[in-house]
């Protein structure tokens, strides 16, 4: 079966239109406000991370062991991710540590995650490559007095057109010597997404 030539040309028109549209849909990239409220999806996002870090830091700075001005030495341990999604909890504790360090009221001892590198560097400096007087000596590291750990949990509920996510971030500061809980606080976040 053959079509007249003008019918064939007409049939090609939509294809040409789609090709043109694809060619014209240029991507645009621009810098945004890193502190803006991000609501692209209801998964854990930058606003949640920043709000948690800010809230936890402000609260922790009020704890008596920090207010005393004795510059407590803290080590950062794991924040367990008990949610169903992937969350880089190390990024949250890194932000909290940065804010606390900036406050000048807390000192941080090397944590378990960075211990390997610390030991390797010490051993390297103990080698014959370095001047003995200036090289860092073994046995001089300072142990932490407190350890910071926590967890993040979530409750997700989904109906036909609505998805509700509730996050609870809990952080604790434990006294390593006597095992006492010196400080703890929580930050709760609720996000709801509805279609239509």
């Amino acid at each position, binding site marked *: 079966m053959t079509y007249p030539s003008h019918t064939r040309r007409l049939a090609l028109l939509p294809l040409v239109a789609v090709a043109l549209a694809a060619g014209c849909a240029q991507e645009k990239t621009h810098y945004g406000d890193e*502190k*803006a*409220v991000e609501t692209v999806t209801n998964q854990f996002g930058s*606003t949640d991370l*920043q*709000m948690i870090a*800010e809230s936890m*830091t*402000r609260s922790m*700075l*009020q704890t008596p062991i920090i*207010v005393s001005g004795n510059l407590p030495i803290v080590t950062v341990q794991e924040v367990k991710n008990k949610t169903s999604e992937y969350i880089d909890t190390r990024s949250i504790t890194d932000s909290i540590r940065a*804010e606390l360090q*900036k*406050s*000048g009221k807390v000192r941080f001892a090397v944590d378990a995650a960075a211990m390997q590198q610390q030991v390797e560097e010490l051993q390297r400096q103990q080698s014959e490559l370095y001047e003995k007087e200036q090289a860092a000596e073994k046995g001089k590291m300072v142990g932490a007095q407190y350890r910071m750990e926590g967890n993040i949990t979530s409750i997700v509920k989904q109906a036909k057109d609505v998805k509700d996510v509730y996050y609870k971030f809990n952080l604790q500061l434990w006294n390593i010597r006597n095992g006492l809980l010196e400080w703890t606080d929580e930050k709760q976040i609720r996000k709801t997404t509805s279609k239509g």
Partner: protein
Amino acid sequence: MKWTWTIIALLAAALAAGCAHKKGFEKPGFAYGCPIGDAKISSMEDLIKAKVLTEGKRTTIQATEIRCTMTSDHLRIDANLNNDSSKVKRINYKFRWIDREGMRAWEEEVWKPLLMYENSNLMVSSIAPTNKAVDFRLILLSQE
């Protein structure tokens, strides 16, 4: 007799006027516990005008009260926000911390989203991240 009553009434009025002087603030340079510097603040409205900045579109959400206190040498703020609209409103807010020289005492805070029910009040609180922060601004950004 009539004259006696008139004199008593005048005396009572004069006494009442003497007692009802303008409210003073307990510490110079502070109003409602909040640092005000040399600004002339004589009421809560003046304080709100001096401390609250609104960005973005006009919103029905307004700060109605601000109180400050010092907690272990850090400035602590409690601000009451009111939504007098008959609709649920969303707003973002953050505090800006200012040092003795009028410069930023800390990096800009993250915008914090807030949901306010119709005809409701909500207290937002914050504590300065550093004792270098001696003043603040509460910044509201409408999400409407």
